[in-house]
């Protein structure tokens, strides 16, 4: 059976893991780094750059460098979160015919799954180079708070990249899976996952190797980016006070500020103060201006305190839903780069009244968990099982536009609920079912998933037809609706009109187009190899480690081995 990699497809950075002979391995990229920026750049010379190379040229080419694409996966252009984000990104967005978000770069239109696919293709290629064999299957992680459309979009991205997505799992659950807690023993843990763009909190019950999620909550628009933005705003205001120049309208300046803010934030996790210097950031009446200021940890904590505090609400909701009090939690595990910030750790400690557990690598835990799940699906691991929950209630639009719930949020998945439908007028031949996800009492205030037309109902008097409709949420968190005629036992025809996303044929076309574009435009030394090349190399190659790895890559492999042996 071919190998299955685990991919943490992050907002800012992505990471790949695999289980090899029972050992967990993080696969470094072609530059030897264990995480890869989720950035795709289109250069004016006509090539496509992904990862570190794309990030490096971002300042010079902001309009054509796409980052944080995850924020737009499965989203409508008119979503209020999108409206906020548009102000903060230098590349162009526009609505598609069905209202989904599209990205416009150098006159060409891309869907978010296509951009994500380019990141995935890069990760796939680096993994193939590293493992010396073709990789065709992956487990990909998403925030627990991703709805059906966002999950579908992620699956589509995989398909476009030529990867069979064998499972979508939730990031906090993956992190829990990667932990070295003895899952044979009963314990309750909290995963507090504050990443680049999203916040998830999940509470799990461990025992007999089963990772049972009890509840989950979060905020799809809360993460490290918001901390950076607070610093940027602070720097801009400060600069305006001194120079009376507003940097907000200067895209290049904004990009430089973003880099400086992120760097300052990271350094202030260990230092008490940092100096921020941006030469020639603007030009005033009396010549060029420089931004030069000192930022202390106290100041940083003052300006970002409210953002960190916003994680408290979801944590309390998760505790309530699991019917637990903080003292019943055995460990609080931190995941996501933003949890390295001391302020965040203090907030966590206050909420759960417990020192957080720091045993997981916040940048790699999610990919490691995905790799472990891949191994379960391959059949290599038999004594571990994941039982996740759905973060949203699923329901239908009923009379008067009221949302009637069928599956409650925090229900374990996979799950199936059936409902019986009948004809309300004589000889009615079809019933329309509108499916929504969310918690609001009115259907229209929730996220529409799609419309299902039950067709071919046998003619008869009102109330005589008996069609049982099954609502499934599979282990990926993806919704399926099907129907059966109770009288005949026959599968009932159902026409599904999803409210968003790409059709199967669109995905197939994109797979072909993006595949071609990508291999043509990747810079020469990064050309994709044909799968047979790997097989040849492998048969030639020496035992164990591939021969031509440079010393840096070797070092990282040994690091992993050392880590595992500790």
């Amino acid at each position, binding site marked *: 059976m071919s190998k299955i990699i685990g991919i943490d497809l992050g907002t800012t950075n992505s990471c790949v893991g695999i289980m090899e002979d029972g050992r967990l391995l993080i696969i470094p990229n072609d530059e030897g780094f264990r995480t890869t920026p989720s950035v795709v750049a289109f250069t004016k010379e006509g090539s496509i750059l992904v990862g570190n190379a794309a990030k490096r040229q971002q300042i010079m080419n902001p309009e054509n460098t796409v980052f944080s694409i995850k924020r737009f996966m499965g989203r409508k252009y008119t979503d209020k979160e999108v409206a906020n984000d548009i102000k903060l990104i230098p590349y162009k967005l526009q609505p598609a015919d069905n209202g989904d978000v599209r990205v416009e770069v150098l006159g060409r239109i891309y869907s978010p799954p296509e951009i994500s696919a380019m990141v995935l293709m890069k990760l796939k290629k680096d993994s193939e180079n590293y493992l010396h064999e073709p990789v065709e299957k992956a487990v990909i992680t998403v925030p627990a708070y991703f709805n059906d459309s966002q999950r579908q979009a992620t699956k589509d991205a995989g398909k476009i990249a030529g990867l069979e997505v064998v499972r979508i799992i939730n990031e906090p659950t993956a992190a829990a899976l990667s932990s070295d807690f003895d899952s044979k023993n009963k314990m309750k843990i909290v995963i507090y996952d504050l990443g680049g763009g999203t916040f998830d909190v999940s509470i799990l019950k461990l025992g007999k190797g089963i990772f049972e999620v009890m509840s989950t909550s979060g905020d799809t628009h809360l993460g490290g980016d918001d901390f950076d933005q607070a610093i940027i705003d602070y720097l801009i205001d400060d600069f305006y006070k001194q120079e009376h120049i507003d940097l907000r309208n200067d895209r290049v300046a904004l990009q430089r500020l973003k880099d400086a803010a992120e760097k300052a934030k990271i350094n202030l996790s260990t230092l008490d103060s940092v100096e921020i210097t941006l030469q020639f950031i603007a030009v005033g009446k009396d010549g060029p201006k420089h931004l030069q200021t000192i930022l202390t940890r106290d100041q940083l904590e003052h300006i970002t305190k409210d953002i960190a505090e916003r994680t408290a609400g979801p944590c309390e909701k998760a505790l309530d839903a699991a019917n637990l009090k903080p003292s019943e939690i055995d460990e609080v595990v931190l995941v996501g780069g933003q949890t390295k910030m001391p302020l965040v750790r203090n907030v966590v400690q206050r909420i759960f009244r417990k020192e957080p557990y720091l045993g997981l690598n916040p940048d790699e835990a999610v990919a490691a968990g995905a790799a472990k799940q891949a191994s379960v699906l391959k*059949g290599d691991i*038999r004594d571990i099982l994941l039982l996740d929950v759905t973060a949203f209630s699923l329901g239908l639009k009923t009379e008067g536009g009221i949302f009637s719930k069928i599956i409650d949020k925090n229900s374990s998945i*996979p799950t199936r609920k059936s409902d019986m439908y009948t004809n309300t007028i004589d000889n009615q031949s079809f019933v329309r079912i509108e499916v929504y996800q969310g918690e609001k009492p009115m259907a229209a205030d929730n996220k529409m998933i799609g419309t299902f037309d039950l067709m071919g109902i046998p003619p008869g008097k009102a109330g005589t037809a008996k069609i049982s409709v099954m609502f*499934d949420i599979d*282990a990926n968190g993806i919704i399926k609706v099907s129907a059966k005629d109770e009288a005949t036992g026959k599968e009932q025809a159902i026409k599904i009109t999803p409210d968003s996303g790409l059709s199967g044929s669109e995905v197939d076309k994109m797979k072909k187009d993006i595949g071609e574009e990508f291999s043509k435009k990747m810079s020469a030394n990064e050309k994709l190899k044909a799968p047979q090349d790997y097989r040849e190399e492998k048969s030639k190659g020496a035992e164990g480690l591939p021969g031509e790895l440079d010393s840096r890559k070797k070092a990282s492999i040994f690091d992993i081995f050392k880590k595992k042996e500790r």
Partner: protein
Amino acid sequence: MAKKLNHYELLEIFPAATQDEVENAFQSMLYKYHPDHNPDKPDWAHEKTSEVVSAYKILSDPQRRPIYNFLIFATLREIPSEEKFSIFQMGDKKKYEEACALFKEGVDLYETSKTQSLLKFQQSFGVYRLADAVYNMGVIYINTNKKQEAMRAFQEAFKINPESQFFSRTVDKLTELMKEMDKASGQPKQNEGR
């Protein structure tokens, strides 16, 4: 169609199983049925896992398990008991037949909509004092966790038909259940001022 297993049968445990036994059984069943461990039959695995999970959720919940136990005993009456009418009671017989028709509609609607079904039993009972109709109203009340209303309905059924062992036992069982649940909710979880 095969007979639907009740939650205890599904988890292969006795109704008297302790909480630990319920949990252990659930965990074993999960390994047996979960789609991750049954890649060759995903649909079957999905359905079985879903059933096992919902069985476990009810049996592991100290509030829901006693109600479930009660509902295994007090199931919907599907056919109203027959009554004999003399020639002088033809008016009543007509009403009885009308009530039976409404009763049947109530039974048919039970799976589709509890509200609609309840309405039919209420109408049926309004037309003719059918003990089974008011009994079924009680069953629906229990389903929607209205224990007081259910108690009144079962007592009414027993009043109409005092010879029925079954109605009398239902009233006793529900009395027991309500005592048990009062006791359980008498010691609520402390919420440490959250």
